[in-house]
């Protein structure tokens, strides 16, 4: 359907005649007091139906955990691009034109834009989070070698190709159907009900598909849906809103940018003895999911390394910027980059290859296997996985070739790096690790599933359909997955944390098992069989020595009044977590991977080209290797964009300057390296009892790209060994240029 253009996204749906359209008027300052809003001209503009302001909304505040985000700013604006007014008009264009005619009187106030400013002014969204083990100060003091430093880690715009969009359609008796491009239909449902002052059961939220999500539609879809619902309630007409790219980038949150300050003590052979890292995150004006994101950053500041004495502190900086939100990796990538940067620096200081330092610090199987948050790493495969990749990628030979090349070339320098990924799987908020599914088997043997997960391109629907087809022993073509709907499975968790298949696959399987149980009970009696004589396979059912088609068996079951539909429920076992201490077992298991990158840097311009990437990644026993491969490759390139060309820029007054594809550069086709070898680790299965022993794959591959950033850092170091690089992320060409010694000022 995708290749024919016939897959309908919300903006493609045919809407009833009379559907109205929303556009927003946005704040033009980062912080200010609203003295007046002039909507007179806008109201008279062509096609305008009405204008909505904060004062018109009874339940103004929304938010995923606490309601600290006004749908429209009331007395104060707290970031550049915050919505102040919403215009309803007969077309998208007319709504936008009218919104541009709204004028504000705003007294600009001092703003806090950067992490540094927030830290200086102690502007926080809560107490710092601390993960602590052993005595880091003492260990660092005692260590023979020490280093400290700072790295700034940029944020990332999601740049899902389909922008935020919602369509609210009033039905009857104050009920409403809301189509929302969201990873979290349940939250949209609850918040729409909240702003309308009605109960959850009056609102059905439907999500057929998203044109990309990446975390950007986990919480940020609600505002649009709520405004559509409010307007729809007011005028009893369908209301649609889709954001222009600029408005989307301005109004919604991004990946958190971080500043990491670190201090580490290590032995002569590079073993880390003690470490302290302060991770300060720009959270924006409201809490959103920042606490869990910073928490996950702390849980990944060890990456794959055993650190006996560690203090990781996380600061939630409150700033006058859009509220930063979930983005593939959810804080994990930033924590991981901080530690990988440190490893690279230890290697430079000791004058050895960084791989040696990595290996000496890796978690081991039976000893050195406890994380700073007390979870025991039970499923560690990082040592063997790394060895396998070193072999596959010819790492050692290439290391020599790189050194030789660098000796022979003055202006072009190469860098090479291998970095590991160990990523924890589960929502770190334990209650979210639950899922439901509904499976219907129809009289003709066709099967229909609904589950709480949403499809954003990650292939979840296919994976769950596979699970169901497999359970009934039928071909997948027989299985249809419906649009996600809050009316079919309630109280679902967002499709996030890489957990979609783990949770919904298990819930769907559970539903299948229940139906099979019903059918089997009937068959046992009807055919006088014993358990074990009934098998579902090859679109047939074996009943002792008898074999009938699945269709016939379904039909027979129906005629004998067997219940052919069921719900299924799943909750992840074994996990627990004490948020006050930041200790416990937040993760059911870990996913592993490793990546080798080789880059070529032009020392005269700071430009670089990625020459080669070799990846080995662990997905357990893959549910669908083609889909998993797509996630690994796509995740890697998205991570590369984050660390290389994607640079968000604000001016000193907090105005976001990179508001479109012409200024914000996600990777283009030429950025995909020609040598790009990706392998799924073969002959392996999940240590834990997940769906078919598979592992989550959504987020972990993004962090493979850290090796690319490290290779750039390595090339800069290779250009001048005396150069202690202060490379930050993203490694824009300009930043690389200034990290190389270009003595032009002399």
């Amino acid at each position, binding site marked *: 359907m995708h290749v024919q253009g016939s897959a309908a996204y919300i903006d493609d749906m045919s809407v009833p005649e009379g559907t109205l359209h929303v556009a927003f008027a946005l704040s033009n300052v980062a912080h200010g007091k609203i003295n007046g809003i002039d909507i007179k001209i806008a109201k008279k503009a062509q096609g305008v139906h009405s204008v909505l302001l904060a004062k018109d909304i009874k339940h103004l505040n929304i938010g995923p955990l606490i309601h600290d985000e006004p749908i429209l700013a009331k007395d104060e604006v707290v970031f550049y691009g915050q919505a102040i007014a919403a215009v309803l008009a007969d077309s998208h264009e007319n709504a936008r034109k009218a919104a541009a005619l709204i004028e504000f009187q705003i007294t600009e106030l001092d703003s806090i834009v950067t992490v540094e400013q927030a830290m200086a002014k102690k502007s926080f969204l809560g107490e710092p989070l601390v993960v602590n083990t052993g005595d880091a100060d003492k260990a660092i003091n005692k260590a023979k070698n020490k280093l400290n430093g700072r790295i700034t880690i940029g944020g990332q715009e999601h740049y899902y190709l389909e922008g935020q969009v919602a369509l609210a359609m009033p039905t009857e008796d104050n009920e409403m159907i809301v189509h929302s491009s969201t990873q979290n239909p349940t939250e949209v449902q609850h918040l729409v009900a909240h702003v309308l002052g009605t109960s959850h059961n009056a609102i059905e939220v439907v999500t057929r598909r998203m044109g990309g999500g990446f975390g950007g539609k986990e919480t940020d879809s609600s505002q649009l849906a709520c405004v559509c619902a409010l307007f729809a309630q007011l005028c009893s007409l369908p209301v649609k809103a889709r954001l222009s*790219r600029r408005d989307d980038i301005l109004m919604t949150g991004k990946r958190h940018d971080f500043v990491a300050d670190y201090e580490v003590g290590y032995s002569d052979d590079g073993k880390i003895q003690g470490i302290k890292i302060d991770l300060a995150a720009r959270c924006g004006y409201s809490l959103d999911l920042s606490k869990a994101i910073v928490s996950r950053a702390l849980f990944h500041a060890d990456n794959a390394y055993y650190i006996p004495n560690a203090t990781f502190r996380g600061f939630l900086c409150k700033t006058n910027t859009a509220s930063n939100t979930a983005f593939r990796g959810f804080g994990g990538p930033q924590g991981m980059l901080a530690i990988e940067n440190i490893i690279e620096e230890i290697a430079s200081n000791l004058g050895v290859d960084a791989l040696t330092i990595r290996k000496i610090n890796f978690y081991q199987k039976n000893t050195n296997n406890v994380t700073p948050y007390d979870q025991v790493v039970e499923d560690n495969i990082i040592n063997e996985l790394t060895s396998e990749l070193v072999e596959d990628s010819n790492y050692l030979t290439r290391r020599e070739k790189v050194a030789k090349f660098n000796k022979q070339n003055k202006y072009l320098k190469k860098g090479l790096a291998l970095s590991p990924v160990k990523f924890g799987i589960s929502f770190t908020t334990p209650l979210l690790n639950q899922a439901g599914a509904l499976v219907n088997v129809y009289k003709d043997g066709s099967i229909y599933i609904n589950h709480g997960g949403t499809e954003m391109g990650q292939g979840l629907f296919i994976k769950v359909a596979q699970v169901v087809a497999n359970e009934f022993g039928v071909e997948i073509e027989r299985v249809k997955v419906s649009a996600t709907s809050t009316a079919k499975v309630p109280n679902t968790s967002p499709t996030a944390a890489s957990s979609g298949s783990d949770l919904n696959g298990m819930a769907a399987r559970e539903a299948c098992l229940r139906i099979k149980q019903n059918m089997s009970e009937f068959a046992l009696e009807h055919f006088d069989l014993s358990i074990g004589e009934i098998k579902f396979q090859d679109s047939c059912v074996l009943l002792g020595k008898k074999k009938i088609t699945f269709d016939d068996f379904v039909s027979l079951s129906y005629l004998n009044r067997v219940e052919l539909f069921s719900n299924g429920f799943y909750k992840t076992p074994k996990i627990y977590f004490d948020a006050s201490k930041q200790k416990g077992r937040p993760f059911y298991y870990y996913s592993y991977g490793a990546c080798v990158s080789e880059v070529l840097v*032009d020392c005269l311009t700071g430009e670089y080209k990625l020459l080669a990437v070799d990846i080995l990644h662990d997905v357990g026993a893959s549910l669908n290797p083609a889909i998993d491969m797509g996630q690994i490759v796509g995740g890697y390139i998205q991570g590369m964009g984050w660390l290389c060309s994607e640079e968000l820029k604000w001016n000193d007054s907090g105005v976001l300057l990179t508001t479109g594809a012409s200024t914000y550069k996600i990777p283009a086709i030429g950025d995909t390296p020609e040598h790009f070898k990706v392998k799924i680790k073969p002959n392996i299965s999940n240590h834990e009892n997940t769906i078919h022993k598979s592992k989550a794959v959504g987020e972990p591959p993004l962090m493979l790209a850290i090796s690319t950033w490290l290779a750039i850092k390595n090339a800069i170091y290779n250009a001048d060994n005396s150069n202690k690089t202060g490379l930050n992320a993203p490694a824009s060409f300009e930043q690389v240029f200034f990290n190389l010694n270009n003595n032009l000022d002399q």
Partner: protein
Amino acid sequence: MHFLLNQNSTPTTLGEINPNMTVLEWLRASQLVGTKEGCASGDCGACTAVVGELTIKDNIKVVEYKSINTCIALAFSLIGKHLITVEGLKEGEVLHPVQKAMVIENGSQCGFCTPGFVMSMFAMYHNEDTVSLPKINEALSGNLCRCTGYKPIIAAAFSVFNEENEKPLDYYQKNQEKIIKSLISINDNENISLIFKGDKNNLSYDAPSNADELANILINNDSAKIVAAGTDLNLEITQSLKEFSHIVSVNGVKELQVINDGEFELEIGSAVSYQKATSSLVKYWPDLEAYLHRFASLPIKNWATIGGNIANASPIGDMPPVLIALEAKLKLRKESKVRIIALEDFFVTYKKTVLEKGEFIESIIIPKPDKNEHLIAHKISKRFEDDISGVCMAINVRLNDDLPSSVKIALGGMSGIPQRALGLEKVTLDNWNDENIAQLAYGAIKNEFSPFDDVRASSEYRLKVSANLVKKSILILKGAAVENLAEINQSNYL
């Protein structure tokens, strides 16, 4: 008012539409929603479709199919052409080979960018006989994908061409004659002049067929706005929500479409597209091939004109620095009066030129190089493909026995206008073999330029990297190993 749409045998009429309406808006309003809006600025390619134009090749009439960003193309520009969208690819129930390849190679995840990729690949299917990675990168340079990492899409593009059999003819290739006949029937080479009754005032659209008529319209209409492809100008409509009251398209003006390869000069009509001009330019200045690859994405280059890139007077247009360094001249026309001026004198200040009311650029005249002349062009941007430059430098050197006898340098992104760097030229000429050329160049550039800090580059980076680019150019001319990384074959370095 008519154009051909997909496989429809009868021409389609655009209807009573605002001349400011884009092709994408028209499509989506007509329920052809396979074509998506991703950015509405020609940067992401989700809206890519293919437009076929009648043209003469080896004295035969053929249809030339080119990819286009429908989000910034005006609907009226379709008149007399053939528009193919993603809905028009299947033949009956059978997928087009490029669609099939994308399915087999898993080239789609969320699917939102997919129609655009399919259309760019479809254009490639029509325009290429063989495949290579650089060709794929060029054909798909205007399509962004956020999910797949492009690897499976590249594999799909390869597989379309690598089938054992010849590429099978698709619907449009099989029916070419019929399509040509239909296109002839809706192309009468007449001036097009339309008036749309707006809510407040009337909006006009003119597409004159010859230069006399164009001159006439411009002199008589104060509000007339010249639009060629509109790849820059139409952003004012989609991004700044402007409405032009009188649009004058120069695409049909035949005199502006001509390339004249004379004995001493190359003269390129101002409405010649970049794609069409490339082969003539590369013939005399081979270094421009890689530079033009980076100029813009293919759907932009297919339509964007040489004259448009000059007339919009952007300080970051990529072609003016090159043309200034080549000492190009402009032929300007107003009514029947023609004047010729040096391009470097054309730009006055930011976005201001010497063009008078009613005057337009007829052609660009470039003196041909002698054998001692070498042109080197650099572009510094945040991404190699499809990006706007932070700095452009073109350096044109005449070498006699390894020493320069003249140096001409022009820079973009360094000031309010594309500008010649006279002081830098002198320093470069005088210190060609000096080890400290970069430091000396830096001093000269600082004297002549004070560039802005903006999202693309800081002032300091612009100044310093320009100085190093002078050094790099000299090293290149001396044969040192300092290739531009954007141009390298990656496997040569492994």
